[in-house]
């Protein structure tokens, strides 16, 4: 549970219409419905599948009107989403693990064509071996391609981030595809009570999608993505680079607007949540549902007088460089929890560790950093695991050595 949820005012004069018990997938489907998405392309793969199931049921039951296309593969599915987006239709897709990777060509061009559909990624380990459980490498594969990429930790956040995601992605200053990632099983398939915003409030928050001069239409003839050479590519890359930079500001705007309508749901700086960090000496930082055991461990360790805290990173792209640097340089040691792998990388650490460490390099006060590889392939990360990670990080704060920089958590050894 994020702190932000606890701060929700109970009644924002009817902006939340009703409450329902929903898992992460169903919550996303309700978000898509409230975003009044025009075109949905679907192709099943667990754990994403339940999103398309829930959407088709909403349509079948007459609660939602949208074009719903079943594709022959993820590649076609993502191409349909991209093309729908180019003709000014709000479009939605999603996948998991190896399905996401199979459609990668389409995912890359959606970013370079600067189109803003939203895709949900139910994080799943990449084959081989065939495994259903969560690992973040699938969504991470688009991290350098010009995508917006964020992780949510509850069904409530999942629903709300469909609206927030479209709001940011479709902004004229951004126009980038939005990857909404959530941990397979731990979020996709766990049910919570979710407050469902009213249609009116959702409409008030999320403006109409308007691609304007880039709308592909007979009245606005344009060519998209022609063959070009070295004399044009750099300028296009620079445009993507600038858009990713601009997105940071738009993300802040979007959360402020969301808070204005729905009550103070999210706390600044929005890109991440801090939990009990005010006087903390040691923190863990992680992505996704590991937040729950980590925060619980913090509460229990705090009871014993230990100054520990947790940072839940929500936005991975664009990376909140300045804010996170300012935040993490306050601590003596930072333990980075990676639910992903980057074999053979510097110090053999995970993707998140590299990003965090790189972010901290120019900081005046650099904390000690240790890295944890845990929860791979969907293995659970328990409160006890979190406590162990805190203890290791506390030890790292006391010594200079880089020995045992990476610790595997929950491994049979």
């Amino acid at each position, binding site marked *: 549970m994020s702190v932000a949820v606890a701060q929700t005012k109970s009644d924002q004069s009817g902006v939340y219409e009703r409450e329902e018990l929903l898992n992460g997938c169903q919550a996303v489907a309700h978000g898509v419905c409230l975003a009044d998405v025009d075109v949905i392309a679907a192709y099943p793969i667990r754990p994403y599948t339940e999103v398309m199931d829930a959407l088709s049921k909403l349509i079948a039951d007459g609660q939602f009107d949208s074009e719903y296309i079943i594709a022959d593969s993820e590649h076609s599915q993502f191409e349909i989403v991209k093309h729908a987006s180019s003709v000014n239709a709000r479009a939605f897709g999603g996948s998991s693990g190896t399905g996401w990777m199979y459609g990668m060509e389409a995912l890359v061009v959606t970013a370079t064509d600067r189109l803003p559909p939203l895709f949900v990624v139910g994080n799943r380990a990449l084959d081989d071996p065939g495994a259903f459980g969560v690992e973040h490498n699938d969504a991470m594969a688009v991290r350098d391609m010009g995508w917006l990429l964020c992780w949510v930790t509850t069904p409530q956040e999942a629903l709300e981030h469909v609206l927030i995601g479209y709001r940011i992605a479709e902004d004229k200053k951004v126009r980038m595809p939005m990857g909404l990632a959530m941990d397979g099983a731990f979020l996709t398939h766990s049910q919570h009570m979710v407050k469902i915003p009213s249609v009116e409030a959702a409409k008030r928050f999320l403006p109409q999608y308007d691609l304007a001069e880039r709308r592909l239409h007979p009245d606005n003839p344009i060519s998209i993505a022609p063959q070009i050479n070295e*004399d044009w590519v750099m300028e296009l890359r620079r*445009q993507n680079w600038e858009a990713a930079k601009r997105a940071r500001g738009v993300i802040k705007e979007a959360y402020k607007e969301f808070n204005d309508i729905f009550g103070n749901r999210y706390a600044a700086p929005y890109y991440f949540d801090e939990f009990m960090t005010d006087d903390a000496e040691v923190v863990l930082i992680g992505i996704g549902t590991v937040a729950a055991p980590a925060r619980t461990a913090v509460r229990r360790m705090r009871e014993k007088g230990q100054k520990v805290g947790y940072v839940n990173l929500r936005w991975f792209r664009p990376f909140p460089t300045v804010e996170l640097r300012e935040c993490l340089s306050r601590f003596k040691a930072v333990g980075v929890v990676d639910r992903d792998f980057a074999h053979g990388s510097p110090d053999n650490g995970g993707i998140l560790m590299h990003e965090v460490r790189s972010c901290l390099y120019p900081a005046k006060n650099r904390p000690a950093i240790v890295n944890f590889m845990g929860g791979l392939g969907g293995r659970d990360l328990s409160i006890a695991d979190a406590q162990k990670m805190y203890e290791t990080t506390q030890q790292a704060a006391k010594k200079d050595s880089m020995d045992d920089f990476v610790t595997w958590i929950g491994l049979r050894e």
Partner: protein
Amino acid sequence: MIKRVEVNYRGIFQKNLGKKIGSDIVMIASRMGQTAFSNGRYSDSPERNGIPCKYFAFVSPNLSEEELEAECGAKLEIDDANISVVLDDTMCKGVEPWGWHGVRPINERVVQDGCLLVVSKKKPEELLKFIGKKSYNYRLAILDGDASLAGLWVNKDDLTHERILGGIAAIDPAVISIEAVEAYLLEKTKDKRRADAARAAYESLRQEAKPPRVKTVTPNDGIVWTHEIPVLPKWFEMQEGAAVPAVKRGFEIGPRGQSRNAMFKRGTTKTQRPAVRFDLCTKCTLCWVECPDECFDPTSDGYYDIEYQYCVGCGKCAEICPVKECIVMVDELQFEDDHSPWEHWKKDSKEYIAWVEEKKGKERVSYPAVTGKGITVTQGVVMPEGKIVPVRKTEEVEV
């Protein structure tokens, strides 16, 4: 010191020829103790029929291989050429390559006192009617011959490759010497004909040769280049999302009535253009229908004008036209501009017919494909105005 040689060639038809010339310059210069390497302009798309492309060879007596490569190989286009070889003289009208911008003069890169070496049957004055002026002196050397298709797999070898090597030796022995060319060809091919062809070309381009075939071109020679070279937009001036505004829509009956892409015309791709006898036209529409580049503009009186700037000279219209002598492909160097043939005809039909018949020529040769045999028109009689009668005799010739 670096000597830079560029070989301008026609896409696909001369691709292998251009590459082989570049390779052999490297081999011969290396045998002379020099450092050399060769590459093609990567942004070209040399598999496209007729598109102007370039191959390069670089030779240095003193630089290391890495330095030479850093100076020349790390760039996609060169700034200066000591020798600019032109394998098809119709490229003298300008080149608009696939991956470059604007219609550029063929001598654009030729340095002061450098040389433009053209394979042609034309005289220097005939070529200089099309070539842009330079602010300094350079040389124009003409190696007697037709545009060679010998590099294409199915075509008969015509020794153009060896003759170019001999020509380069005559123009600048510091790049490759004729002795080194001969020795290399003999050793590699064991075929004296090849070394002899190089030697003959060398002799024809020597200063002492009679008639002289190398002319000094002064700043007074050539034409004022009218094609603007586009300035490319900065990153913030471009449409985002790899989106390009389409050609403005519009269509009117008459010459140039169709909207076309002003940024890329492709007309320098052609070596021949269709010449039309409107008086023989039956208005069957086939040229207009079949043209892959939509170069034909319908006119108010039911004919089809041609916008030559966009014609790539594929010859499909001439092939599909059911009337003999109505559409005939003619050497591009016969034409000094791209004016509308239909307007010309409307203005003075008799003058137009005389003009177009003169361009078509009474003695025509079709290039020998595969077998080395071709067709020549031996007895030319102009078809009378408005009449369709069999008038020309043809026979097969060995070329």
